[in-house]
């Protein structure tokens, strides 16, 4: 047992840090630092920069264009990205659909789609949830009926993240109504430019457009866009969800958020003293920090076991998802509370990069302030998406505890 990084890992960290210092565009890192709105171009631009360095997909195997990193290297990379205010990579492509295509797609699909993902050329979104199928995902009803060389898809997907940017959507569709619900689902890759697809924004509680309804009306999808076998999609869907949840611990993000919180608490004042010197507030920070310290090690233990045993992520990731989502919420809550009543103003324009705080508010008002309440409200989603906390506990109960 050894928690120290090897000299090679330390050298890797130095290399990553130097790369990030030189290559993260300042306009983008400023947005992250100040809590301003990220747009598609920011994320695509960053993906292309990583791709040029050969780091477009750190943990993918090299034969698919990845860097072939192990979990510790990936951990170091994410930690450094968070510290450098580098933007997140697009998870729906890299961490969700790509592992499915690698594991279950055919050679033609792998050769066509994977390079376009790693280069940042294609943006993917997810078509899982439906209005009547949330936690009970297997009850989904969007149908795909064969017609010659095509499937004809009809139905509605919802809670789709950033589909307004997407070139492609991976969809769970019903190809059989016989047998039990899980046995009639297939995994389809659908071009978002296909006639019959429409995207309708859903505005979330903080006032932003992040998610959508997506409607399919007689959308024709070539049969060759089926992944794996027809009616086996539920297996792939679960595989994908486990991959998704490996990133849900979000230790790097949590660390960035904790550092922001400590900085805020050092600069905000209460009774003329820095807020961090208020033992009650400091204790609340410390409580989250303890949880994060433990999660960091639990995360590495779980992921390194998968890597060592050469198996796909299992139900253990549910614990990581539960903890990571709670921690990021608690940090957001504390950051908002650190502002005191300055958390009340709703300054939508303040999310634009050009916004100047001084124009409106006193100099004590931290530049990051206008984003914090919205961030708190927005992040309530984390214990709901990718399988709610309650669903994760069901999974632990069934798959790990055997109850």
């Amino acid at each position, binding site marked *: 047992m050894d928690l120290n990084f090897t000299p090679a890992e330390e050298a890797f960290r130095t290399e990553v840090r130097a790369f990030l210092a030189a290559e993260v565009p300042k306009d983008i890192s400023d947005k992250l630092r100040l809590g301003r709105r990220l747009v598609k171009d920011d994320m695509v631009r960053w993906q292309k920069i990583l791709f040029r360095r050969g780091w477009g997909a750190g943990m993918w195997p090299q034969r698919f264009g990845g860097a072939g990193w192990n979990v510790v290297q990936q951990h170091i990379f994410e930690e450094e990205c968070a510290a450098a205010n580098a933007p997140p990579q697009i998870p729906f492509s890299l961490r969700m659909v790509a592992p499915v295509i690698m594991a279950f797609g055919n050679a033609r699909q792998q050769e066509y789609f994977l390079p376009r993902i790693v280069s940042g050329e294609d943006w993917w979104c997810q078509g899982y949830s439906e209005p009547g199928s949330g936690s009970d995902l297997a009850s989904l009803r969007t149908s795909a009926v064969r017609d010659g060389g095509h499937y004809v898809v009809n139905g509605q997907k919802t809670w789709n993240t950033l589909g307004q940017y997407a070139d492609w959507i991976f969809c769970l569709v019903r190809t059989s109504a016989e047998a039990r619900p899980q046995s009639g689902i297939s995994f389809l890759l659908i071009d978002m430019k296909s006639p019959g697809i429409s995207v309708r924004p859903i505005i979330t509680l903080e006032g932003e457009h992040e998610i959508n309804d997506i409607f399919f009306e007689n959308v024709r999808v070539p049969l060759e866009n089926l992944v794996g076998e027809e009616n086996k999609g539920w297996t792939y869907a679960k595989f994908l969800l486990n991959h998704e949840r490996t990133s849900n611990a979000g230790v790097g993000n949590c660390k960035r958020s904790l550092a922001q919180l400590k900085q805020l608490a050092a600069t905000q004042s209460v009774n003329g003293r820095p807020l961090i010197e208020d033992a009650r507030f400091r204790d609340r920070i410390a409580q989250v920090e303890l949880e994060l310290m433990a999660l*960091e090690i639990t995360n590495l233990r779980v992921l390194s076991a998968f890597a060592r045993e050469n198996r796909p992520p299992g139900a253990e990731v549910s614990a990581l998802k539960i903890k990571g989502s709670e921690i990021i919420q608690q940090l957001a809550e504390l950051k908002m509370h650190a502002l005191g009543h300055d958390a009340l103003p709703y300054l939508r324009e303040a999310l634009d990069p050009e916004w100047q705080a001084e124009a409106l508010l006193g100099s004590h008002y931290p530049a990051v302030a206008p984003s914090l309440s919205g961030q708190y409200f927005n992040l309530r989603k984390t214990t709901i998406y990718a399988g709610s906390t309650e669903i994760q506990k069901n999974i632990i109960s069934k798959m790990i505890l055997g109850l």
Partner: protein
Amino acid sequence: MDFRYTEEQLALQETLQRFIARDYGFEQRRAFAKADPGFSDAAWKQYAELGLLALPFPEEYGGLDGGAVDVMAVMEQVGQGLLLEPYLSTVVLCGGILRDAASAALRSAILPQIAAGEVKLALAAYEAAGRYELSHVATTAVAEGAGWRLSGRKSVVLDAPSADCFLVSARTAGAVGERAGISLFLVPRAAERLRVLPYATQSGARAGDLELTATRVEGAALIGAPGEALAVLERGVDAGIAALCAEACGIVTALNQATLAYLKSRKQFGVPIGVFQALQHRMADMYIAEEQIRSMAIIAAVNAGSSDALARGRALAAAKAYIGQAARFVGQQAVQLHGAMGVVDDLIVSHYFKRLTMIDMTFGDADFHFARFSDTAERSGAHQAA
């Protein structure tokens, strides 16, 4: 980075598991706890034969050169078996302090004796009015000729009744609460005017209060430089805290196993109670707590030997605080999920729960260590595991 035990550590654990299954079942343990000396002499001899008592000492003193992670592997099993022998006091705490701070002559004399199971020790570092503060030392040591006279009281000295010698903190200078001026003495049980008031603790192991009334010890009884023992004590107790974290980890693992088995076997309303979602989700929370506790026990073990006192203290405080909270949750819920069976003396569940509770209240409880962690927040940057 590597989170696995080595082959040797796993083999050691298996040996202990076999020993517990064969010689240290629940009923046997209760018999040991009831009769004097409150543990098994035969088990102590076995630990010596297995090398457990030599584990953290240098080879030149008959030791096995083990580190805190080796101790962690052992202490997990100590937890699972609820072993009563004074391993923590003799080997980890006092043995560790003597290894780090005693003169070469004393090390040569006493470490091989500890390793052979010939001498048992107890740490007398806390006083009634001081709660968990090691610097609260009102006991005094006054030089007299070549020796010293010690006066004062030490409270809840773990494993005191069976100890052959005590490591006693006493003030040679300064006022109560000051960091400087604390010294450490090795006091033989047979010293004149040393009184031990023995009692059993809530979890079965024995302890006692010490009263020293101008108790005379030789000059060689002083461990390290006079007045500079606090850092030595803190390091020693931090190692003890890491060991307790590992013991708690072992207990939580065993307690979760027992509770899960109960949920699958106990039937009400015609079905195993584990089919009820309220209980499933509680058990899932207990599973998550166990994983987080293990991670914190690892952080404690790998930091226990660090000579960077601030980083070490912060890591150990974090681990002890977190495990205090999380193990309390697991312990209380294990009792709750066992229903009335959880509150009887005849089932091991209540014994695990009591031991977890005592662990929390040994060397500083969750609140104490939480404050220690929180109050050092400004001085540390981003937290680093190692």
